[in-house]
C-alpha cells in the first residue's frame, strides 16, 4: 500500500522539477516587480499592482486559457515561438512551469515587497554617500536585508507550484510523464475505479512534501535572521 511505483516516483520528481524551475524563473522578475511597486511612485502604479495580483483572484482555468491564447501553438506569441525556434510550450513540462509561475507570481511579489518595505531607506542613503551606485546599493544593502522575503516568496511559490492544477491542466495538458504533476495525477487517479489507493498515497506524499518545504523555509529563515543579528 505504502510503497511507491516507479511511475509515482517519476510524478513526484516531475512535480519537484516544475516547482524548482518555477521559483528560478520567477526570482528576477518578482524581485524587480516588488522593488518597482515598493519603491517607485508613478502613474499607473495602482493598475500595475492590480494586474500583478490578478492571478490571485481569477479562476486558474481562466488564466490557463489566457496562456493558451497567448502562448499556445496557435497563440499570438506561441505561433511565433514555434515558427522561429520550434518551441512548443503546451504539452511540455515547461508549459507546466509557466502556468504555475503565473499563478505563483503575486505570492512571491507580495512577500518580497513586504520585506523591501521594511528596509530602512536611510541605510541606502548612507551607502550612496559611501560611494555605492544605486545598483551596488541594491545588491549590497537592500537585497541582503530583504533575503527573508525572497526566501518566503520562494517557498510560497514552490508550494503554490506543487499544488497548481487548473492553469496547468488547461494550458500544459495532463500528459503522463510530461505535464502530469502531483495534483493532476491525483485527479486522474480519482477518475479511475482502481485508483483510490494510489491517489491516497500521492495525497499523503503531497502533504509530506509541502510540510517539509515549509519546515525547511522556517529553518532557513531562522538561520538567516540569526546570521544577520
Amino acid at each position, binding site marked *: 500500500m505504502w510503497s511507491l511505483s516507479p511511475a509515482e516516483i517519476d510524478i513526484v520528481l516531475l512535480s519537484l522539477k516544475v516547482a524548482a524551475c518555477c521559483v528560478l524563473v520567477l526570482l528576477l522578475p518578482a524581485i524587480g516587480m516588488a522593488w518597482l511597486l515598493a519603491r517607485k511612485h508613478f502613474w499607473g502604479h495602482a493598475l500595475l499592482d492590480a494586474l500583478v495580483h490578478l492571478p490571485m483572484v481569477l479562476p486558474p482555468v481562466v488564466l490557463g486559457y489566457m496562456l493558451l491564447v497567448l502562448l499556445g501553438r496557435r497563440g499570438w506569441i506561441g505561433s511565433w515561438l514555434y515558427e522561429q525556434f520550434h518551441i512548443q510550450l503546451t504539452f511540455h513540462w515547461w508549459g507546466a512551469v509557466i502556468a504555475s509561475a503565473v499563478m505563483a507570481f503575486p505570492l512571491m511579489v507580495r512577500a518580497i515587497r513586504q520585506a523591501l518595505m521594511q528596509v530602512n531607506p536611510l541605510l541606502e*542613503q548612507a551607502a550612496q*554617500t*559611501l560611494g555605492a551606485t544605486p545598483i551596488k546599493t541594491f545588491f549590497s544593502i537592500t537585497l541582503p536585508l530583504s533575503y527573508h522575503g525572497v526566501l518566503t516568496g520562494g517557498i510560497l511559490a514552490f508550494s503554490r507550484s506543487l499544488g497548481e492544477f487548473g492553469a496547468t491542466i488547461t494550458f500544459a495538458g495532463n500528459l503522463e510523464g510530461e505535464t502530469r504533476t502531483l495534483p493532476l495525477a491525483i485527479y486522474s487517479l480519482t477518475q479511475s475505479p482502481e485508483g483510490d489507493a494510489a491517489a491516497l498515497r500521492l495525497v499523503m506524499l503531497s502533504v509530506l512534501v509541502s510540510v517539509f518545504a515549509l519546515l525547511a523555509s522556517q529553518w532557513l529563515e531562522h538561520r538567516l535572521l540569526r546570521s*544577520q543579528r
Partner: protein
Amino acid sequence: MFTVDIRIQQPYAASTTFDLQASFALAPGQCLGIMGASGSGKTTLLHSIAGLLMPSSGVIRSGDHVWFDHKQAIQLPPWQRRVGLVFQDGRLFPHMSVEQNLRYGMPTGMARIVLPEVVDVLAIQSLLKRKPSQLSGGEKQRVAIGRALLRQPSVLLMDEPLSGLDDRLKQQVLPYIKQVIATFGLPTLYVSHVGDEVAEVADEVLTLAQGVLRQAK
C-alpha cells in the same frame, strides 16, 4: 579648499517656503561648527553638500572639482562625491560586521587614510568582528566616524554625531572626534544644536537661524 555657496529653497508647511543661504570655505584641517535649533536646516545643508538633496542655486566645489553648479547644470550624485557623512544615528549596516562596515566605502587602490590607523585612532580594534547590534551607542558612532573616514573624503560632515548619546557617552566619544580632526587634517563641518559641544570641537562657530549663517557671539 572646500567651498560652499548655495541657496536651498523648499516648500514647507502650507504656504511657506524654507529658505537657506550658506556660504563658507573650509581649509584642510579646519573644523567649522554650525549651531542651530532643530528644524533650522542643519541636516538639509549637510545633505545638500553630500548630494542627497539638490540646492536651488549656487556652487559646491572641492578643490578643482565642481560637485554642484546650478548655472552649469552640474550635479554630481552622492556616490561620485568624496564625502564622509556621519549621520546622527550612525546608520551602520546591520547585516555586516564592524570591519565590513568600515571597508564598505573604501576605494580600491592607494589610500591616504588606512584601516589600521583609523582602527587605532578610534580604538575599535576589539569591535571588528562584532555586528552593530552588539555595540553600544558610543561604539556605533566611533565605527560610523571610521567608516566615513575610510571613504577617503575631501570633506568630513558630522551631523549631530553625539545627539543620541547620554552625557557620559558624549564625553567618551568627543575626544575621539577631536583626535580624528587633528590626525587626518580633513576640512570638517560639525553641526549640532548644542553650543558647548560645537565650541569644543570647532575652530570657528557659525549659528544658523532663519535660514542665514551668522558668526556666533
